[in-house]
């Protein structure tokens, strides 16, 4: 007996050199020769690149010539080329699941020092695969329909761009944003490098389109709280937090804000990072979408004492948009695909106390300076110090929280460029002498190096060296009342003290504080730094290991606006390719229960995390619902009588494989 009854098994084994990636370590000739002697093997070959067309043609030709009905390819990870060779097997006229891939690159040649040991290991793995594939059976993938709706999590430029792309192709989009307005970090920026386009001028039209696009259902002040289901058919619960103003009734006139009992803003405005003040009823920023104010119950007098004259309600009048009784609501959505666009947070500079952030008032983060130079910012674009003075000298410190063993080892990719941009803007607005302190200048994008040249010509000073610290301890009259930067100028080879009035910390990009929770919610992988993990760093950069969930923007890693938009477009396209195909083929690795062998012990029923197994009281056996099964195989491992089995991971297959690697 074997996987296809009594029909004789004819196995073809193909060993890939992968150039020198495999052949440089593993003796591929010896490997192919050893495989030729294994039971059932009819033909065994080695070839330079099995995944190339001629490589695949070898398999097709041999299958026809030798009547092969099992294929084993020893090459790279199944996560890379399992699908490729399954297709080859199908092209050769055999069922694609009569194939097995052996990973002798990632798991052998790339991780071994000793060629002899690597070859031994590869021989054992190939032997196991040959033993395993003997038991393979013909399988048919299950097809499930794909719901055309898409959930996009996060309404920054990534989420906005993906939403507009999908919506204009006619796909229904749910755009979920936790802040009161979409726009994300980009809305906070003043100008964008290297073109110096005004961020608002290029972003706000897109934000408005989101509001106007009938296919986009925008949910602000909302968070995803539960995700279940699978590719094509996700069920998502979204928590909608109260705005206390009815979006459907509000016309965005802003009269309620005028009429608030507070005549001036009193509370720090999040959007301006606390540099500006707002009232308890406020618009996050003038171009907010939806253009609807919100009420902060923590500061609103009506919420605190119920004794407010409620000028807001009075002026709203018949529109009756203000509703103090709103509560948290949960809505349920059904979507086929999900795009994660949850963005980043900026590095907290208090973690590096030597720079005096929070201690010296004129030490700012780069994002704060974006608000200061912005014409609609808290100072209406006037760059002034906390005491109202104009700065005469400004120091911009690169790599705060990046390329630093004590904080983050990675480069945040955008800081050099935004520091150059801020240097240009600050010089233009204040006429101050601007210093940039850098480790290496990284300007590898289109037009970036040219921009660097331009800023050099502006007369900005560049000092190569990481600032050791910021102090107010003056050692000369020129340093009195200044912030003094101590730095080793590594080009001059001297330690310098440079007095400035304003310090700008070019802070790193970091994964969102709750990225870990979000990752678990959506069942995603994460890098050590907390960035969501793409399926393949080069070939599947927007896919994840959960089918149907895609990544866009900085949640996957630091990147600038052009890269973010490009990635958002790619994620939208990936999502669309699933929707337009209309169905997905599921890996046929589901379990089933052999009725005659089932003793009715119930063990598997409790094991299944998806309640796919129930107990048939009449027949006294367990019954598995294939549509709910996701193929983990936990029931199979638990079944004491061997009645539960899993396609592609049958007991016979795994036991043969274990024996194969050993003997």
């Amino acid at each position, binding site marked *: 007996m074997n996987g296809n009854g009594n029909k004789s098994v004819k196995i073809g084994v193909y060993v890939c050199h992968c150039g020198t990636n495999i052949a440089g370590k593993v003796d591929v000739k010896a490997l192919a020769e050893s495989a030729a002697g294994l039971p059932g093997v009819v033909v065994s070959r080695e070839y330079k690149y099995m995944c190339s067309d001629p490589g695949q043609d070898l398999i097709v030709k041999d299958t026809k010539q030798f009547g092969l009905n099992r294929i084993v390819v020893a090459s790279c*990870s*199944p*996560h890379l080329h399992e699908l490729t060779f399954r297709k080859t097997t199908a092209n050769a006229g055999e069922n694609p699941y009569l194939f097995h891939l052996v*990973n002798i*690159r*990632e*798991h*052998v040649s*790339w*991780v*071994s*020092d*000793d060629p002899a*040991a*690597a070859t*031994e*290991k590869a021989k*054992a*793995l190939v032997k*196991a695969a040959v033993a395993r594939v003997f038991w393979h059976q013909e399988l048919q993938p299950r097809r499930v329909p794909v719901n055309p709706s898409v959930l996009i999590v996060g309404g920054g430029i990534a989420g906005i761009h993906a939403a507009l792309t999908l919506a204009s192709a006619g796909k229904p989009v749910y755009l979920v944003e936790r802040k009161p307005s979409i726009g994300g970090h980009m809305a906070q920026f003043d100008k964008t490098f290297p073109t110096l386009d005004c961020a608002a001028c290029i972003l706000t039209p897109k934000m408005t389109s989101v509001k106007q696009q009938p296919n986009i259902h925008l949910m602000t002040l909302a968070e995803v709280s539960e995700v279940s289901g699978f590719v094509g058919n996700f069920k998502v619960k979204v928590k909608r937090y109260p705005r206390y103003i009815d979006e459907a009734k509000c016309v965005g006139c802003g009269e309620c804000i005028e009429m608030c009992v507070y005549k001036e803003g009193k509370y720090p405005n999040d959007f301006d990072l606390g540099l500006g003040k707002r009232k308890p009823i406020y618009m996050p920023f003038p171009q907010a979408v939806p253009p609807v104010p919100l009420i902060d119950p923590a500061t609103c007098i009506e919420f605190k004492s119920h004794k407010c004259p409620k000028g807001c309600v009075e002026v709203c009048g018949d529109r009756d948009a203000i509703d103090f009784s709103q509560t948290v609501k949960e809505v349920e959505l059904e979507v086929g695909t999900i795009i994660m666009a949850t963005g980043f947070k900026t590095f907290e500079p208090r973690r590096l106390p030597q720079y005096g952030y929070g201690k010296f008032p004129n030490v700012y983060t780069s994002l704060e300076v974006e608000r200061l130079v912005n014409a609609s910012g808290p100072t209406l674009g006037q760059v002034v110090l906390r005491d109202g003075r104009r700065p005469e000298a400004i120091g911009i410190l690169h790599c705060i929280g990046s390329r630093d063993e004590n904080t983050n080892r990675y480069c945040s990719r955008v800081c050099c460029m935004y520091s150059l941009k801020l240097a240009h803007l600050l010089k233009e607005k204040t006429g101050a002498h601007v210093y940039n302190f850098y480790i290496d200048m990284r300007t590898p994008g289109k037009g970036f190096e040219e921009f660097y040249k331009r800023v050099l010509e502006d007369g900005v000073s560049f000092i190569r060296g990481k600032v050791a610290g910021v102090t107010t301890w003056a050692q000369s009259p020129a340093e009195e009342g200044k912030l003094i930067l101590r730095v080793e100028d590594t080009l001059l080879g001297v330690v310098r003290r440079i007095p400035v009035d304003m310090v700008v910390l070019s802070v790193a990009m970091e994964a969102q504080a709750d990225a870990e929770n979000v990752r*678990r919610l959506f*069942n995603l*992988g*994460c*890098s*050590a730094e907390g960035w969501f*993990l793409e399926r393949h760093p080069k070939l599947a950069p927007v896919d994840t*290991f*959960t089918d149907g969930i895609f990544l866009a923007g900085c949640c996957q890693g630091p990147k600038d606006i052009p890269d973010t938009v490009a990635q958002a477009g790619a994620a939208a396209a990936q999502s669309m390719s699933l929707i337009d195909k209309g169905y997905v083929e599921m890996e046929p*690795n589901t379990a089933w229960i052999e009725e005659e062998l089932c003793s009715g012990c119930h063990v598997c029923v409790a*094991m299944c*995390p*998806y309640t796919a197994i129930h107990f048939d009281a009449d027949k006294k056996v367990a019954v598995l619902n294939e549509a709910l099964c*996701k*193929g*983990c*195989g*936990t029931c*199979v*491992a*638990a079944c004491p009588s061997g009645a539960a089995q*899993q396609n592609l*991971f049958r*007991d016979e297959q*795994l*036991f043969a*494989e*274990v*024996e194969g*690697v*050993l*003997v």
Partner: protein
Amino acid sequence: MSDGFNPLIVGFFCNWCTYLAADLAGTSRMKYAPNVRVVRTMCSGRVDPQMILWAFSHGADGVLIGGCHPGDCHYQEGNYKALRRTALLRKMLTQFGIEPERLRLEWISASEAERLRDVVNEFSEQIRGLGPLHLRPDVREEVVAA
């Protein structure tokens, strides 16, 4: 006893975490001991105790199971089931005269290539120290039957 002894270890790695960590170790060109031979399962919850006994009775000197970290299982909780089974099986191993240290369960996520390397190296050394597993023929039969 351990002179010239090269242990054979079967690694049952789950498709979503530990197998990917091993892939990442490869793409990062990390070098580690060649003793672990990987059998891929979709979930560490698929690893049947019988498969582990089968490995020991067919020449394995050690068995390493790699799964996702608690709370990270691709199938919600298969890794917890692996944990419970492993704990029980260790007690049984003692009765067969197999040192329970020969069975190891580790949580290694897809991004923890360094950890994978360290675990494989460390476990290979540990098994080298324990020496080859010699099962008495009658015990071996019992193990196969178990």
